[in-house]
């Protein structure tokens, strides 16, 4: 079938069922075989009468990023939706309630504000829902019904996902919701069927591939941690990391693990170190402000060589910053935060599938290299949903990666034995003949404190050698290009990379010669690979969601000239169009 690429928004006021409608839309489109990427935006205040918006991009091809223009707006509230008008594509379709529960002056209505090219699909959502189900509560589903009929989405797709969502609430609730949906669907079939513009392709569903699951980044992290054999989770509530704790609180106990809500982030990382020291896979998840509190104990993990897994779900900063907005501004803190020369591993997934995969990997890295591993995500990645084939780690990927001491050294065990790799076999309390004291003081091989010049130099070198050696187990940069010399090379990390890839793909379709490089291992990083890529590029562009260009600061020196920074501190994801525009200004005139 024809290529489909639609961005659909549901917009309403808190309490309208906006987020629920967006979720059902995503599930139905996923069930229809489309790729889905969704991202909700809602106010930091729980009952602030704020605006709720869900944005979903639906496509026949894999979706890497959100588009900045919306093709379809499903409005549940005129006043809130008016602010979305500037984001509408020229030929957008707008569904709205023609007889809303709250009266809107005609000239203030959404319909009066849109561009003339917009197709309006006004219908009495609340009235239809009330007539069908005896309540207007299902109005959001009536809206979806109208949309589905207009775009030719099979009714069954929605009925299936509505049933899945509401069946636990009893037949009465389920029945009312299906009736509400059907009322809108019937109305749409009768009145809207043939009014769809040619530019907006219908969505009858495509051939299904493997079974897919709809996951947010946070849920993928939670699943990854459980599949990796997580035993203990310690955490403190903070946006946007809290859903990980809540997911694990529901799921971990049945796997024999425990979730403990601690008194702060300091005790959370402390208990994680304690748990791993005692041999149990342990993790914590936080955001910037909590991560800042953890840094002392993270460097304790570095010095005492104790594993830990710390997820930093970045948000706007500094300080309390923008709690419900996205930013990639904790890279410096993750790589350099804390006292002393304290090398640690920092990795950054760039999509939902990678959130799962690299959470799983982080436990083995932490054990093998006896070090804190920091996984950097951000609000946009944590909260966006993608449909993906059900992720499943292999036995090998979750196996115990500890190196235990050999029996021959029983009684003469040296916990911090000097080795070529820097990795010293680690005993676990309970193992007989291998007792030792781990310490955050500088120490000799046996673990006793020692402050001599030569020892500190040697031990510091050992810890750095160990982390540098981890590079062989860390995901290497991935290049997307035709190869050879490139006019522009775009380097990115984390949630921004999807937008980069899309911009680069479009640029190449337009005949430009550009490439993209995805960096997952933030520290240590594959300097040789990155340098080789940069040296093939006339210009290097690094788009990031931070003001300082933090990744650029880290790798700038690898290049023979300055990299171009596209640094954005707006709290919103970077749209592909912005990157594309920058690429086009960098390509020398006449080049192709």
């Amino acid at each position, binding site marked *: 079938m024809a290529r489909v690429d639609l961005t659909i928004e549901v917009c309403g006021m808190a309490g309208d069922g906006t987020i629920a409608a967006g979720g059902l839309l995503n599930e139905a489109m996923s069930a229809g075989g489309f790729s889905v990427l969704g991202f909700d935006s809602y106010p930091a205040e729980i009952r602030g009468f704020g605006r709720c918006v869900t944005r979903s991009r639906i496509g026949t091809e894999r979706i890497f990023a959100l588009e900045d223009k919306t093709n379809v707006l499903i409005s549940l509230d005129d006043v809130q939706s008016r602010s979305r008008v500037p984001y509408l594509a020229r030929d957008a379709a707008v569904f709205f309630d023609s007889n809303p529960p709250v009266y809107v002056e005609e000239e203030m209505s959404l319909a009066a504000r849109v561009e003339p090219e917009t197709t309006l699909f006004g219908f009495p959502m609340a009235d239809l829902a009330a007539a069908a189900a005896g309540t207007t509560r299902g109005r959001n589903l009536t809206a979806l019904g109208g949309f589905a009929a207009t775009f030719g989405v099979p009714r069954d797709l929605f009925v299936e996902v509505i049933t899945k969502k509401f069946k636990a609430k009893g037949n009465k609730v389920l029945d009312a919701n299906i009736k509400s949906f059907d009322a809108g669907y019937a109305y749409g079939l009768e009145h809207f069927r043939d009014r769809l513009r040619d530019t907006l392709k219908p969505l009858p569903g495509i051939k299904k591939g493997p079974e897919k699951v709809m996951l947010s980044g946070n849920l993928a992290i939670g699943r990854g941690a459980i599949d990796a054999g997580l*035993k*203990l989770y*310690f955490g403190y509530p903070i946006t946007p990391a809290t859903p990980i704790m809540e997911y694990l609180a529901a799921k971990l106990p049945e796997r024999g693990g*425990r979730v*403990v809500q*601690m*008194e*702060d982030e*300091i*005790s*959370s990382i*402390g*208990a*994680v*170190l*304690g*748990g*791993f*020291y*005692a*041999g*149990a896979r*342990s993790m914590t998840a936080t955001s910037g402000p909590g991560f800042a509190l953890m840094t*002392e*104990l993270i460097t*304790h993990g570095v010095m*005492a060589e104790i594993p830990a897994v710390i997820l930093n779900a970045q948000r706007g900063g500094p300080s309390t910053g923008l709690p419900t907005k996205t930013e990639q501004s904790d890279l410096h803190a993750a790589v350099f935060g804390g006292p002393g020369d304290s090398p640690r591993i920092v990795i950054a997934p760039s999509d939902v599938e990678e959130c799962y995969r690299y959470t799983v990997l982080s436990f083995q890295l932490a054990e093998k290299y006896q070090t804190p591993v920091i996984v950097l995500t951000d609000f946009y990645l944590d909260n966006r949903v993608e449909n993906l084939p059900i992720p499943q780690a292999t036995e090998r990927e979750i196996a115990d990666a500890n190196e235990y001491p050999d029996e021959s050294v029983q009684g003469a065990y040296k916990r911090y034995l000097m080795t070529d790799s820097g990795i010293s076999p680690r005993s*676990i*309390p*309970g*193992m*007989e*003949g*291998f*007792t*030792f*004291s*781990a*310490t*955050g*003081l500088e120490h000799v091989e046996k673990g*006793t*404190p020692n402050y001599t010049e030569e020892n500190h130099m040697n031990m510091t070198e050992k810890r750095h050698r160990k982390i540098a050696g981890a590079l062989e187990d860390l995901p290497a940069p991935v290049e997307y290009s035709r190869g050879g010399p490139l006019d522009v090379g775009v380097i990115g990390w984390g949630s921004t990379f999807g937008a980069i890839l899309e911009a680069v793909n479009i640029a190449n379709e337009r005949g430009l010669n550009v490439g993209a490089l995805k960096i997952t291992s933030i520290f240590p990083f594959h300097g040789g690979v990155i340098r080789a890529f940069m040296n093939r590029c006339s210009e290097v562009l690094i788009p990031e969601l931070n003001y300082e260009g933090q990744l650029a600061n880290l790798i700038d020196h690898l290049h023979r000239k300055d990299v171009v920074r596209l640094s954005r501190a707006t709290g919103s994801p970077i749209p592909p169009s912005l990157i594309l525009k920058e690429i086009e200004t960098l390509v020398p005139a006449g080049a192709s």
Partner: protein
Amino acid sequence: MKTSGRDLARKVRSIGESREFEARSGELPTWCPGCGYFGIHHGMNDCIRRLGIPLHKVVTVSGIGCAGRYPFFTKTYGLHTVHGRAVPVATGVKLGNPELTVYAVGGDGDGLAIGGGHLPHVCRRDVDINYVLFDNSIYGLTKGQPSPSSPMGMKSKASPRGTSDKPINATLLALSYGASFVARLFAGDKKMIADVLLEGTKHKGFALFHIYSPCVTFDKSYKTWENLKKWVHPLPETHDPTNLRQAFDQVLEDDWSVGVIYRRPQRE
């Protein structure tokens, strides 16, 4: 009386045979001669020996300060963490492997100032760890600044006109926070330390051992050996440690009585 070399050798051998110092490592404690912490060390070793569990199934977690060095002086597994965080780290160790016997040790600065925020929560969480609080009312390792349990008016380089802050009472805090086992002890009574530690270690749930100790180097006026020996006395024989109200009364009325202050009846 002078001890001859032969007598000393015999004494060392007899100590070895008595297994009294079984839990001690070969490391020499870094504490000043005459420090009260030697008595606590002795009492803890004795307790661990009498517990009868192998040393590799015991973990001693500490923070920073003179007391923080404790793990190096035992043969158990040890974890010398950062300032103020022994209790949460010990919580992780115990939950990581519940078969381990876990001690958290630290001083009054470590546990009542920088780490004071953890005390309410370890009490209400009632994790089965044993917290030995070495209280000498001073920051020893940084050379004599006033601590949260120093008396008002204490003069030091950091408080040349005397401190103006009121001292806090760890025993009273633990009772208020709902700790399920609270004992107050004195570094000069090794036997009582061992006996009460043994009882508290067997107690299922969080146990606080608040131990008064002198700092012989930096405190010449308050918790000196002389004063402590004069002030400290056993709890009255009528004290019922299962009666929380009586425990509060006892602690509010008398700062210097030692023994098991409170013990929540155990659920079987």
